[in-house]
């Protein structure tokens, strides 16, 4: 009976997918549930998901008053936006030049971009730290942004997009008397907005979540980005208040997750584009 067989297959497929989904969701569900539990229910360590006594208000307000969570989030927004704006301002003209203009050294520069793609931030971290320490620039927004201002990935990705832009239109714009600057910002860049949007999502997610570099340059808790703030808060609260700890985790994870739920397409596109590399 092929019909029965197909039904069984479907049940099996959904069974596997749901089991996997449960594993993926477990931390999120338990985080949310624990964030509204009173301490005695956390410490009784039963498998009950929902609390018998709602303690959410206390946990969330404790987390908010004990740690400057809002400050961490604002720092995260400033750093991510600062990085993104400079990355785009610098990468778009560079990508356009590499894709459409003939000038000496173009191929060498492209090879450098390919090399830069392979170098993770942990490599220049040590010399950059020494330089920032010498200039007394540690614990500043500039120090948080510095290593990421040039994005080889942005240049590479946008170059691919600009290459396929029709030369005729650029030539026509030139004959109309448009300067190269105008051509980049008013004609070519807007045409690549899906790539720019996907890259932006990619960049913001990466730098909102980065721990390694903030951990190195930030010692002043008030300058911490969300992951570093979370780490400082967890260190200060270890073992004592899991409800508040989970409340803090929820609040620091929520912004990106909410944006993801609304802009799923761009997140997926951003990941898929890494495969273009």
């Amino acid at each position, binding site marked *: 009976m092929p019909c029965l067989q197909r039904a069984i297959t479907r049940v099996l497929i959904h069974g596997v997918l749901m089991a996997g989904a449960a*594993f993926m969701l477990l931390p*999120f569900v338990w985080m949310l549930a624990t964030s509204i539990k009173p301490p005695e229910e956390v410490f009784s*360590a039963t*498998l009950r998901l929902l609390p018998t006594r709602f303690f959410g208000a206390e946990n969330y307000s404790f987390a908010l008053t004990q740690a400057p969570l809002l400050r961490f989030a604002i720092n995260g927004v400033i750093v991510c936006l600062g990085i993104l704006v400079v990355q785009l301002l610098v990468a778009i003209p560079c990508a356009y030049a590499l894709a459409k203009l003939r000038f*000496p050294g173009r191929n060498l520069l492209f090879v*450098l971009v390919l090399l830069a793609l392979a170098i993770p931030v942990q490599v220049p971290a*040590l010399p950059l730290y020494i330089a920032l320490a010498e200039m007394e620039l540690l614990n500043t927004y500039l120090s948080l942004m510095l290593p990421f201002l040039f994005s080889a990935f942005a240049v590479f990705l946008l170059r691919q997009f600009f290459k396929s832009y029709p030369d005729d239109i650029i030539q026509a714009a030139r004959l109309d008397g448009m300067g190269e600057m105008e051509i980049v910002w008013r004609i070519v860049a807007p045409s690549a907005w899906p790539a720019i949007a996907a890259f932006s999502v990619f960049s913001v997610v990466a730098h909102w979540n980065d721990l390694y570099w903030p951990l190195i340059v930030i010692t002043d808790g008030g300058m911490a980005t969300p992951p570093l703030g979370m780490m400082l808060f967890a260190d200060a609260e270890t073992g004592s208040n899991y409800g508040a700890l989970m409340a803090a985790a929820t609040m620091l994870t929520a912004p990106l997750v909410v944006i993801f739920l609304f802009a799923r397409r761009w997140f997926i596109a951003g*990941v*898929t584009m890494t495969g273009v590399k």
Partner: protein
Amino acid sequence: MSAFRLRQARIERWTGLGFVTPAMLLFMLTSLIPLAVLLGLSFTNYELGAVDTKSVGTANFAKAVADPVFRRSLGNTLLYVAIVLPGAVGLALLIAILVHGRRRSRGFYEVIYFLPVTSTLIAMATVWQFLLHPRLGPVNAFLRLLGFDEVAFLSEPHLALPTLAVVGIWQLLGFNMVLFLAGLSAISKDLYEAAEVDGCVSGLDRFLTITWPLLMPTTMFVMVTTSITAFKIFDTVAVMTRGGPMGSSEVLLYNVYLEGFQYFHMGYAAALTVIFLVFILMFSAIQSFVLERRTHY
């Protein structure tokens, strides 16, 4: 016309150079010069704030080779990659194939499996630490319910690294799944129909004759990026184990971080970073080789 061409060539030359200058200055400032300084530092005994720094030749590298902490951290990092790689690639492939066939529920599963990629890993590592807590965590509560003994996942030396690897797989699965889904969408439906005519009826037959070979370039790409990401493990170690218990979860980047930014042994940390970079470049070389082959596919 030729006057126009000449003028155009001149404009292109100068605007071209002008347009790449900011990018190249930033690249030199944030990557190339630091890279040169790093190489230089790796041959010195420089420590932050030290007055007398001298060249020590290759002593830092010799020290690394003999250093039990470094050897253990390199071994642990490679072991971590060896666990995460098959897990995060194999499971992502399985999930992607199952999700690809769904019509109505595809978006639902996509969201769930992708959720860990977007969430802040540090926050979620704290949550995992709590989930795995021997007394308070639900995982052990469940084990007790089934009649098993408690398992101290993060304080048992032989369990700490595999546990971190499970969290690593949890985090990477959705990312890889999306890459596989993109690869699967690129395979033409006609091929499956043709195969069915040719007698490939069962799902496994179709997978082995069409999906697997055509998906090979994607699989190779996912394997290399997963290896690089796994090789860079730092966050979960910093939050969940700090290299412990008894050094069983010491990994390369955590070692670099401690030597460079906690003990301020800059020269030695620079040498370790150079070794780290050599591994990353090796992975990247494999990657460009793979991509080269993919374009000819």
